[in-house]
């Protein structure tokens, strides 16, 4: 199958407007005849479900959490970008577009990114109208702050809880539609398979997580907004329930998986502590506005931070990148931290940490001003580490945070499988090889509020969709397969817990396919992953039954999918013999240890087609062309 991105013709500024006009419309009276299945209730899924219901479609909304309000978007801290230029500092749609393409190391699709920048301003309007309490100045107008990878202040925020506030806004819009009878809600329900009929995505198999009952839901289109796959590394900043299952099952049904090796390691997280840790905690990137990152100049300097004089400290980001300083993009900051630690200059008990120091900022503006900006983050840091960051510098280290890769979609956010739309972190489209801070919330809401409501109409108005119901052979086959798999997971009763096997996989992924990768390590991973997968199916221990709430069983199903997905991710990393963004291949770096891209050979999206468990997937390429942004070696110096 050839990959058509369906990017409209014309100048980049006019593409989306023209495309909205060209898309066929569904007559308002006909909309209620179409049923749309939306999986996931985070910023992308929640906003899509609410907006599609407002338009008149019949919507079913599914989530694994006990309430749509608990989707993991809620944990986003720092902010959301928008090209409002309220700060009068030279921002524009064009600049946001340019920063995002450059920040993504020229591995995203230009037209999608431009549309994202264009829509960004309407998102802020929408959220404010919903009652989202963004930070304001005394004059009553909205406040902005800076974020990594940008030299303008375009980030809107709600203290350190921006994701929570945006999600609650989106959740309230969704609850309104439930109130109006336009959305049926299915909480604590997990999608276990995608149903494809006559080549079109038509439904899903679900399991009610409370009763264990498995069902078939058939509709006219399926929207996946099921988040990222960071938990493939076991330790990450993701929620415990975050998983790749919905996306992976769609992939096994024919949807291509694009650029899975593009993962984001966030520079400012609380370092790993002990072997029983279940998750890593992020400290918002906004802290780098006032915090200064440093390590001792000398190797193995074990003095307390306060005892290291100014001239014996290396503020390495300010030294190496004078124009962006502490606000370089995440991939650059993470790699620099790793390099400092690899040189033996890391701090703390493990030597795997660097300082994020607020002493200068506190001296400049006072402790109260710092508390006003970051109070909840400092509080959180203290709870976890037992140390007071107002007095002693924070210790931070990079951790897995976000995944830029995901299911392949065209300009309409539709997969190569007709009728399957993929939104937010679950798709691959807008962030290239590295996402800039405060852009995930922007993309999730852009996709859900302002893109898919148009493009899904274009599909439904023209697609020929044959009548089908749950008795269809394809639906019954998928249902049967899901039931068998549950029975199989429960039947092993081996000697290792799901967590133990998940942790083994995570270690392989972090060591071989983490912040730095090389051919030798990736090849080793390709030997190690199948061995863990094999052991999983022989030796996993899942207690309890499939007929009621069984959290181990849920987790086991997700880990089993990670064990298949991981291999594709490593194959993708192995295939891409260049460094770009978060994908750092040690073989491809400049003399100054920066990522060296190879635009001649790798300026494409790698979209993988499933061929079977343990079989090498087939590679399809979508060539990336840049007509508006000139490709250069990314520099933040």
């Amino acid at each position, binding site marked *: 199958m050839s990959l058509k991105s369906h990017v409209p013709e014309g100048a980049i500024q006019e593409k989306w407007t023209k495309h909205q006009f060209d898309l066929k419309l569904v007559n308002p009276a006909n909309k209620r005849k179409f049923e749309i299945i939306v999986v996931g209730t985070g910023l992308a899924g929640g*906003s899509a479900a*609410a*907006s599609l219901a407002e338009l008149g479609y019949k919507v079913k909304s599914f989530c694994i*959490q*006990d*309430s*749509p*309000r*608990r989707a*993991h978007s*809620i*944990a986003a801290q720092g902010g959301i970008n928008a090209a*409002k230029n*309220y700060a009068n500092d030279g921002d524009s749609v064009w600049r946001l577009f340019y920063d995002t393409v450059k920040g993504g190391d020229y591995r995203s699709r230009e037209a999608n990114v431009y549309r994202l920048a264009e829509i960004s301003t*309407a998102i*802020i309007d*929408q*959220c*404010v*109208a919903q*009652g989202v*309490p*963004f930070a*304001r*100045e*005394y004059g*009553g*107008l*909205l406040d902005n702050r800076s974020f990594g990878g940008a030299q303008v202040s375009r980030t809107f925020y709600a*203290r350190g*809880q921006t*994701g*929570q*506030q945006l999600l609650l806004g989106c*959740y*309230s*819009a969704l*609850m*309104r539609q439930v*109130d109006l009878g336009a959305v049926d809600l299915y*909480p604590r329900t997990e999608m276990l398979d995608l149903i494809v009929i006559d080549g079109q995505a038509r439904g899903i198999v679900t399991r009610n997580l409370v009763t264990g009952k498995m069902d078939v839901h058939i509709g006219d289109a399926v929207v996946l907004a099921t988040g990222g796959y960071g938990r493939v590394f076991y330790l990450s900043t993701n*929620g*415990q*329930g975050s998983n790749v299952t919905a996306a992976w099952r769609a992939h096994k049904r024919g949807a291509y998986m694009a650029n899975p090796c593009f993962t984001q390691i966030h520079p400012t997280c609380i370092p790993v502590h*002990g072997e*029983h*840790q*279940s*998750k890593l*905690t992020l400290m918002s990137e906004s802290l780098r506005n006032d915090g200064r990152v440093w390590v001792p100049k000398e190797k193995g300097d074990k003095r307390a931070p306060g005892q290291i004089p100014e001239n014996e400290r290396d503020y390495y980001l300010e030294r190496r990148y004078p124009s962006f300083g502490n606000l370089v993009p995440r991939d650059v900051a993470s790699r620099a931290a790793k390099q400092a630690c690899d040189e033996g200059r890391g701090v703390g*008990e493990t030597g795997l940490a660097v300082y994020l120091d607020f002493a200068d900022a506190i001296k400049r503006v006072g402790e109260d001003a710092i508390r006003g900006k970051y109070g909840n983050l400092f509080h*959180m840091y203290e*709870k*976890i580490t*037992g*140390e007071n960051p107002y007095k002693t510098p924070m210790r931070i280290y990079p951790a897995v945070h976000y995944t830029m890769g995901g299911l392949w979609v065209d300009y309409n956010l539709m997969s190569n499988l007709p009728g399957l739309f993929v939104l937010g972190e679950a798709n691959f489209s807008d962030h290239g090889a590295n996402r800039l801070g405060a852009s995930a919330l922007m993309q999730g809401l852009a996709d859900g509020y302002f893109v898919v409501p148009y493009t899904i109409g274009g599909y439904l108005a023209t697609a020929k969709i044959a009548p089908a119901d749950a008795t269809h052979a394809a639906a019954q086959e998928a249902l049967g397969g899901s039931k068998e798999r549950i029975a199989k997971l429960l039947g092993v009763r081996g000697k290792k817990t799901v967590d133990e096997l998940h942790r083994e996989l995570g270690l392989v992924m972090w060591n071989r396919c983490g912040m730095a990768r090389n051919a030798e390590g990736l090849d080793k991973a390709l030997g190690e992953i199948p061995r863990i997968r094999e052991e999983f199916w022989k030796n996993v221990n899942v*207690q309890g039954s499939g007929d009621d*709430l*069984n959290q*181990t069983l849920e987790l086991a199903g997700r880990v089993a999918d990670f064990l298949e997905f991981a291999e594709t991710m490593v194959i993708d990393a192995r295939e891409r013999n260049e460094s770009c963004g978060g994908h750092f291949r040690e073989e491809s770096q400049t003399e100054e240890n920066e990522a060296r891209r190879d635009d001649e050979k790798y300026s494409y999206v790698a979209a993988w087609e499933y061929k079977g468990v343990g079989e090498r997937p087939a590679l399809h390429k979508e060539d990336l062309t840049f007509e508006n942004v000139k490709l250069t070696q990314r520099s933040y110096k």
Partner: protein
Amino acid sequence: MSDRNIRLKVRVWRQNGPNDKGRFENHELAEISQGISFLEMLDLLNRQLTLAGIEPVAFDSDCREGICGSCSMIINGMAHGPQKGTTACQLHMRHFEDGATITIEPWRAKAFPVIKDLVVDRAAFDRIQQAGGYISVRTGSAPDANAIPIGKEAADAAFDAAACIGCGACVAACPNASAMLFVSAKISQFAHLPQGQPERWRRVQRMVAQMDEEKFGACTNVGECEAACPKEISVRNIALLNRDYLLARFMKEPV
């Protein structure tokens, strides 16, 4: 800082479903590092149970950084445990002594039936939110975000109320199992904002009616809710709700 290992006795509630009577089960844990979180301690308990062929304890958790509101358990008689302004997931074992016995129970309230062990059904909160806990704004119909200035004080007050994570600790801590703190937080957030005014009187009447229908108890100004709230939402929001509710009734505002 270095963390010691401690031994613990855990007395944990087990219940197979809403109709099961339920019981406490006792377990011992050796070598728990004080550096780990409370839920990581439960992970270790569950590992021990699994390897002994016993079904693990069911409990809700997701973000494990105090924002999603999933975790919900009574620890030694206190919702979310002994630390003020802290969810169970952010509680660390350094607050427990060597040899301590820890009692863990689910939220107990008629409106939150137990699903299994420590997991309860909080869908009542969603249904209250559906009864007008929103501002009616269609996607795409909003004016420019800076068109309506909102003073910093009002915006901050709205934010303080909006910080609610919907965990239900307020209900669990209240001797009457009242949901007033949760409902008032939403009412108060919108009442402080100009966008919330057109539906203000209808909203308060509908949400309160739904709250009553869900069989939450009445508020008798005990204040346990504020003390237990991991986000330290103020009971002043309840005063605002009461005022708005009375005004709406006296003025015979439409529902």
